[in-house]
């Protein structure tokens, strides 16, 4: 699928949820941009690390997976609106399907995204889980 370099160059953004912010107009971007689309040449963008807190803007439960995601199926895919403004696309974990709702508060967590074939590169990055600690209950329920 892709080489070590392709994983490595996006590692910081995917591990720490890094984006950018325009110092001129205050707009935040994810993924990071080099130029502010509003201010263009007049803008000045700097890196910003997002808090990882946000709300579910929309979600779906995918029952058919692309290759390498078979073991995570069905999976919850969501657009999360971060508290700082931009949206990210990611999976929601540690959450029962019937508890999902638009507007639900979530926080970023660090997870395995996929394994490239058997023994291949393992890719990590952010996923999101419910903010209200209900995910601890989710785990306890799974233990029983």
């Amino acid at each position, binding site marked *: 699928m892709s080489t070590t370099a392709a994983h490595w160059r996006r590692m910081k953004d995917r591990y720490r949820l890094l984006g950018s912010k325009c110092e001129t107009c205050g707009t935040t971007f994810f993924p990071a941009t080099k130029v502010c689309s509003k201010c263009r040449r007049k803008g000045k963008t700097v890196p910003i690390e997002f808090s990882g807190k946000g709300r579910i803007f929309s979600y*779906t*439960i*995918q*029952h058919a997976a*692309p*290759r390498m*995601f078979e073991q995570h199926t069905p999976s919850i*895919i969501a*657009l999360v609106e971060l508290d700082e403004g931009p949206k990210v*696309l990611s999976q929601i974990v540690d959450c029962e399907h019937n508890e999902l709702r638009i507007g639900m508060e979530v926080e970023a967590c660090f997870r395995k995204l996929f394994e490239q074939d058997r023994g291949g590169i393992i890719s990590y990055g952010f996923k999101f889980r419910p903010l209200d600690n209900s995910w601890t209950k989710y785990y306890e329920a799974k233990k029983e």
Partner: protein
Amino acid sequence: MPNKREVAIISAAATKCGEHWDKGIKDLAWEAGVKAVDEAGISGKDIEYLVVGNMSGGMFVGQEHIGALVADFLGLNPIPSLRVEAACASGGIAFSQGCLAVASGLYDIVAVGGVEKMTDVEPEQATSVLSGAMDFEWEAYFGATFPGLYALMAKRYMYEYNVKIETLANVAVKNHFHGSLNPLAHFRNRITVEEALISPMVADPLRKYDCSPVSDGAAVAILAPLEIAKKYTDTPIIVKASVPASDTLSLLKRRDICTIDATVYAANKAFQLAHMERKDIDAVEVHDCFTIAELLAIEDLGFCKKGEASKMVNEGQTYVGGKFPVNMDGGLKASGHPVGATGVKQIAELVKQLRGEAERGRQVNGAEVGLAHNVGGSGGTAVVTILSR
């Protein structure tokens, strides 16, 4: 188009869409090409330029260099040929590029093709190939599929505009009905709302009957300046406008995930160039890769306000015979979605409609002006074309 030559279609033809186990990419292109050339009454030698839309020959069948490949198999060497790609809008982009070539005055007779061979790979592989049309690093990488992205749009749309799931089912039922009357359609079966609502879930809220199929198919249109087209046909179809537009590739960067801004922009520009209004349109082919996309298209093209397409659908206005017929061929849902060919296949359908040659039951009576709408990815590209008799 000011200061430029008026472009017309001499002929357009498409293959049947479906799982063509016995046909490869060359066979499909050849079949559509020969049909179009025969219908036009021209000789292959008259064609001066070839543009082919194809999304991913490389990943579907290991074949790139599609422009020269199709030129070769249609016997068009040594004319210039090229392949253009804009995901599922490759066909629409190819058509608009062909129009530019004629309008510019550089070429008189131009062939525009679209071809895709999708069923030689496993379904999971097809899903992965199609994922290439989204932002790979920030969408596909996190496990999103195309049904997943359109499901995100559908979920939010239903939430914001209080739209019921039955509305999506009604779109599928209507498109299967139209498809049942179209001999070129991938699916000829009619379905009921109940069947649609209990079909297997693909990406909540989208079920099997909300999704267009993986199809093989090809389509070809022959273009010429209007004056030259008149020598070949008594009913040239005039290209009033063919306008592509772009937007963010990823859904996460969209201004509004319930609106495809590229469609809004392309439609406004197309109507302006054509000097026409929405009410002038008699028949519409929209890009319903998923049922939700048909609702968004009707709204974003400007035929009703945001959130009101469901009313038109639920009242049956979008059937042939209704006030506002949409996807007379069955749409992508039933007639099939050979991605790179779809944009040209829509043109072939409109040409049929505007010439009054569509099959009984799905011909829009007296249709004079038609609109085709082709989308790439989740809305990164849109092409709007207005044709008139």
